[in-house]
């Protein structure tokens, strides 16, 4: 097209014929003066080349053994980098522009890459905790085309924000006719956001309370189970559960204090008694 300067509806700003049509070899590989542009031949060839690369990329991951395999990462990345720079150099004309534009674009690109790499290194390599967290909390997914997908019901308990636990929405609902203390535990009390009781709640930020009714009696000499539980609720740091009881995990004491401080004022004395009563039933 560029070898055939316009003849219909000419634009007044352009000087026709001022630029030459570089040969294909020179266009792609040679040194050409500024102002040289390609035409249908050059751009068409490049488009076919890019389409072939895209096809090759697709064919690479067709064999099932290669899908998601780390073997294909390098070839795929190399192919897309080739595509990327072909478009930048020829479609975006950067090969034929002032070096200043290269520098500007590459500076932005390099900054973007550094930011991306830093993020990935920070969260993906140096701090692997989130991945371990996910592994422990994973829920299976299965396809159910017709019915409502069951994973919608599988909402994971929200870790409570520092200060106050929200009313948990996603825990296993209390069975009907359950203990009023259990209703408090999974309901407005907010306990279930942090504590686990098998079949009732799945919190992980605080110690699990399975069998606390019997275990509490042996926690401290001189304390009955009831006294121990009540005091643990009212003064969360009085008998911090954790390593001493053979639990595998340490808990965040500051988070516990601030969270419990947000919850306690909302509970009446009767609520506390109901909770203690309920926890005592856990044998």
């Amino acid at each position, binding site marked *: 097209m560029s070898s055939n300067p316009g003849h219909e509806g000419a634009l007044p700003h352009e000087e026709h014929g001022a630029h030459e049509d570089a040969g294909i070899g020179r266009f792609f590989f040679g040194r050409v003066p500024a102002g040289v542009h390609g035409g249908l031949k050059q751009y068409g060839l490049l488009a076919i080349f890019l389409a072939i690369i895209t096809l090759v990329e697709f064919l690479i991951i067709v064999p099932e053994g290669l899908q*998601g395999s780390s073997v294909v990462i390098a070839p795929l990345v190399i192919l897309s980098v080739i595509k990327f720079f072909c478009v930048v150099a020829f479609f975006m004309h950067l090969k034929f522009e002032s070096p200043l534009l290269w520098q500007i674009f590459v500076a*932005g690109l390099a900054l973007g890459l550094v930011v991306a790499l830093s993020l990935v290194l920070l969260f993906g*390599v140096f701090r692997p905790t989130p991945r371990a967290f996910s592994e422990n909390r994973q829920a299976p997914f299965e396809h159910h085309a017709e019915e409502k997908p069951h994973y919608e019901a599988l909402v994971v308990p929200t870790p409570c924000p520092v200060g106050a636990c929200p009313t948990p929405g996603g825990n296993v609902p209390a069975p009907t006719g359950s203990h009023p203390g259990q209703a408090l535990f999974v309901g407005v009390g907010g306990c279930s956001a942090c504590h686990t009781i098998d079949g009732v709640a799945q919190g992980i930020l605080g110690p699990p309370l399975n069998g606390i009714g019997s275990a509490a009696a042996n926690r401290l000499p001189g304390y009955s189970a009831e006294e121990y539980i009540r005091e643990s609720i009212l003064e969360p740091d009085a008998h911090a559960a954790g390593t001493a009881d053979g639990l595998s995990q340490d808990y965040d004491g500051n988070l516990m204090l601030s969270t419990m401080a947000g919850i306690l004022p909302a509970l009446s004395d009767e609520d506390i008694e109901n909770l203690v009563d309920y926890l005592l039933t856990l044998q």
Partner: protein
Amino acid sequence: MAHADTTHAPPAHEASAHPPAHEEETNTGISHRKLLMWVFLGSDCLFFGSLIATYMVYRGQSIVGPYPIDIIDVPITTISTFVLLMSSFTMVMAVAAARNGNQKRLIQWLVCTIVLGGGFIGFQVYEFNLFRVEGLRYETNLFSSTFFTLTGFHGAHVTLGIFWLICLAVISARNPAGRPSGEDVDIAGLYWHFVDIVWIVIFTLLYLIGGFDAGPDVGHAAAQGWQWITGIIT
């Protein structure tokens, strides 16, 4: 035009093989609008770099499905990638037509580009809707949030580009003797190609490599990659 000499910058038309008569003299020898577009594209690299990195960081971290392997359709997206790639070709032809002053061809190539861009958006709307029906909403899991944010912003860029090209086509059709100038189309073309190269990266990382990710399983390629990098560092 190729000189960046600020002290003795020659008038743009002396260095340029195709001097746009209206172009003002700048001390970089590059028109301000074009320079600004490249600065913007450089900064947009940062924008998309951050979104892509966020996706990669949260890869394999979703604890509820659907996961990419349940839902990503690579063949369909390969077709839409091809469509967007071809729109880059028609766009560069439109730029060449504008530079040659061939108004009729310019409009034809612009319309081709608009149709192909619209086709790409059509594929994306189809894909998003399919995901919604399959139960993958924006807030479903980390995969859906990062996926929709990244591809959604890219789709918004394409949509904006389509509007831009429609404006150029309408202007050329209504005012054959005046605008758009070659540079007007050139700048729109730069934006359009940039959107294409962003998709080249997204297609490779999210579909070809990440499209087979399952749940929080350390066995997938990314985790192996991390272990490999960690092995080198430590």
